[in-house]
């Protein structure tokens, strides 16, 4: 198709604008990545932008050898894996029940669910509830309270309702109960919706730092994002790592003064970000549908 001159100008403007937007979006991450691979002492001279000036793995060595950061990373991994599996399973089962018109009292359950989307008891009563349940400083507080997500329930429910009714009916005629119909017929056909919702749940669990800030003060149970927030807040990464003490390796590095607060924070940040970014392109083609169902059919 031939383009008229004005069309060509228009197209060029759009491409330039979008390229600029992509650049502005990506640059801060790229720059953080570069700094995490650059010698700390060199970074503090300024001017490190697109490429490491003096490449080093030192920052990562320090971060990965630090017991607290490694522990926090493991807590986050365990929380995300267990929490996602639990939440998706529970929400799927719940939604299947809620997708059946014959369920006794369904209308009332639904009202109960929707109301929670718009208001809550507030942070303090919630805090006291967790406290009274004895969930403070337990791993469970990181995965159980958010297990049932109403948005995800609505998405699942819409998906289940759209399934051809004949499939389930034939299974029922063959003697399957509700539960085995769900496990044998419905679940195997729900791959895409499970994939996209798992991604959303995993992202939320991985990125959540606030609940741990409120409910966890056992250093062994702090997830990586909360630890990063602590580090950022205190901005004393150097002191914190030093106070871990004991390690000759660390002492040597700090004497050499090539690792700085900034370079270590950047490396920690990358450790906290890369896992989730690495997963998302693989699920990208699924999640568009998830977003659409969730935002319109509520």
């Amino acid at each position, binding site marked *: 198709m031939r383009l008229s001159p*004005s*069309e060509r100008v*228009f197209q060029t403007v*759009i*491409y330039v*604008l*979008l390229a600029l*937007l*992509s650049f*502005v*979006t*990506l640059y*801060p*991450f790229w720059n953080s990545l570069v700094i995490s691979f650059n010698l700390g002492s060199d970074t503090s001279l300024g001017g490190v932008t697109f490429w490491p000036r003096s490449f080093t793995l030192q920052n990562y060595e320090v971060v990965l050898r630090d017991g607290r950061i490694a522990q926090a990373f493991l807590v986050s991994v365990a929380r995300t894996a267990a929490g996602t599996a639990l939440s998706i399973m*529970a*929400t799927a089962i*719940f939604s299947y*029940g809620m997708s*059946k018109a*014959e*369920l*006794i009292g369904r209308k009332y*359950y639904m009202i*109960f669910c*929707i109301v*929670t989307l*718009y*208001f*809550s*008891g*507030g*942070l*303090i*009563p*919630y805090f006291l*509830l967790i406290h009274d349940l004895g969930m403070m400083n337990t791993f469970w507080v990181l995965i*159980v309270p958010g297990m*049932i997500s*109403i948005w995800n329930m609505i998405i699942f429910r819409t998906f289940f309702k759209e399934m051809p009714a004949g499939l389930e009916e034939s299974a029922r005629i063959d003697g399957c109960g*509700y*539960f085995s119909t769900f496990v044998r017929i419905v679940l195997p056909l729900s791959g895409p919706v499970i994939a996209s919702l798992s991604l959303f749940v995993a992202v939320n669990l991985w*990125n*959540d*730092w*606030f609940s741990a800030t409120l409910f966890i003060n056992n250093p062994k149970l702090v997830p990586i*994002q909360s630890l*990063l927030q602590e580090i*950022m807040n205190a901005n004393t990464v150097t002191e914190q790592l030093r106070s871990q003490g004991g390690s000759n390796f660390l002492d040597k590095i700090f004497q050499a003064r090539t690792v700085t607060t*900034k370079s270590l924070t950047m490396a920690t*940040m990358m450790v*906290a*970000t890369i896992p*989730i*970014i690495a997963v*998302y392109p693989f699920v*990208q083609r699924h999640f*568009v549908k998830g*977003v*659409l169902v969730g935002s319109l059919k*509520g």
Partner: protein
Amino acid sequence: MYRKWLSQYQLLLMSIPFMALLILFTYVPLWGWIMAFQDYSLSKGIAGSPFSGFSHFADLFRDDRFYLVLRNTMVMSGLSLVADFVGAIALALLLNEVRARFFKRTVQTITYIPHFVSWVVMANIVLGSLSPDGGIVNDVLMKLGFIDEPILFMSKGSWFWAIHTMAGFWKELGWSTIIYLAVIAGLNHDLYEAADVDGAGRFQKMWHISIPGLMPTAMLLLILATGNLINTGYESQFLLGNGLNIDYSQVLDLYALDYSFSIGDYSYGVAISVFKSAISILLVVSVNMAARRFGDFKAF
């Protein structure tokens, strides 16, 4: 009746336990609202604390700081709402004009990324970029000659709303286009072809077909978002705020938290939460009525 229960015992087993879990974590805390009408103390608990009627609410409405914090909450969610709304539609329209599929997909993939990054990391990046010592924003502004001295972005409260809005905009812009792109893709192609035949240019097609096509969805989302105006988060304000800009950065939830945990006045903190929920219900109900009038639609 009995037979009906029996025939669906599996179905009930599949829903009731989870319903109970939901009620435990969302409705049971409502019990704590009683604290707002008591002089609550941790040692006595809800059962033992003396009642004080509406005194905390009376205090609340006399508290100047409360109005300040309420203003911050509403202004910041309003600004984010408008920025996100306009930005997402504009970006979706631009993306729709791109012919090269690969370029379009790349831009989409890149602009989705910040959505997947935690606020902790985002705040870290924002604070780093705005830092007066070596932050990129100040560096660029100085090099271009707009300013002679670095601007202390985070220590002047008046900057906070703009910074907060931009940070949220940057984080969610790409993600919010998903729905608009899908709506545009679903518009009737005959319309565009007919417009081509009539000699319409790109701008005319955008103005007369794409934008009107987007409007129903856009209005719906806008109305729903208005219902949640007071419910927007506190994470970003918590992370970006500091002692110097607290008059602009503190929002209702953080104020409640602060009152309860730093000062120890739990009842006052809960009174703030109760007030917030009351406003939220009011907003949702009125918005739902507006939505019904607006079209054949119920928010719930």
